[in-house]
């Protein structure tokens, strides 16, 4: 099945373009941690995510991928 994968969490700069663009409200910024660049990285709520790829299209920092994963990933 196709699944949204956060491929490069450390590249996220917390611009929130993906969070505001997500049609399902599945994305949010992590609250209690920061990435290597010093920003709270984006995180996915897989209960809501439908792997539509909007976040991939709007992300300026190449954080996401829609990838083929086996089973429930």
């Amino acid at each position, binding site marked *: 099945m196709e699944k949204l994968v956060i491929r*490069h969490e450390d590249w996220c700069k917390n*611009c*929130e373009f993906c969070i505001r*663009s997500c049609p399902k409200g599945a994305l949010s910024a992590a609250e209690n941690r920061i990435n290597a660049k010093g920003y709270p990285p984006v995180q996915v709520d897989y209960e809501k995510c439908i792997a539509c*790829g909007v976040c991939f*299209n709007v*992300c*300026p920092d*190449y954080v996401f991928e829609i*990838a083929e994963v086996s089973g429930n990933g």
Partner: protein
Amino acid sequence: MLKTIPKACFIDNKYCPGCGHGIANRLVAEVLEEMGRDGDALAAIAVGCASLMPDTFGIDCVQAQHGRAAAVAVGMKRCRPDKLVFTYQGDGDALAIGFSETMYAAVRHENITVIFVNNGNFGMTGGQMAPTTLEGQRTTTSPRGRDVRTTGDPMNIMELLKPLDPAYLARGSMTSNAEILKTKKYIRTAFEAQERGVGYSFVEILSPCPTNWGLSAMDAVARIRAEVVPVYPLGEFVKKEGL
């Protein structure tokens, strides 16, 4: 549909959070990859924020002098007409310092593609006023807002290039998923125009500059929608037959 990062975007970019350059880089890389030309494309890169691109972009680039990217691209295209040659420039580079090169490449109908990222100021040097700065917009060199009586009107490059008989002219933006996909289509058509040898193709991309506009990334996107697009309308302005 599976979506993977294009091979040319092999490392994290160095742009500010929310900067449109990251998306523009990826769109160019995706289009070239889809056309199967990412291995033999050549880019002439401007000075400015665009000059951060060669460090993080896996396609052969030549760093041109300030404003001269179009002239450098013309040289490359004339020597190697088999290559897909494009320039990647900001508004300070292509319309202020390099206005002559940008226009004369169009006057001579050079078979190159110009990717022009318009964020309304000189981003890298600290947000000074550029030819594309809107009336009343505050920048570090127009602290009371741009006064068109002394500095002239915002420059609409589409209107200037239209009479020069280019092959393809389009302006896209990055304000939403739909606009980004449209912009990608414009870039694709521009490269196809070059591939078929139709002539000069030019794509302008309205891009947010949250750092120098003093706005959050999302407020910068909202500003493009509310203030920039009414002055610089989106769409395809020239599309020669067969494209």
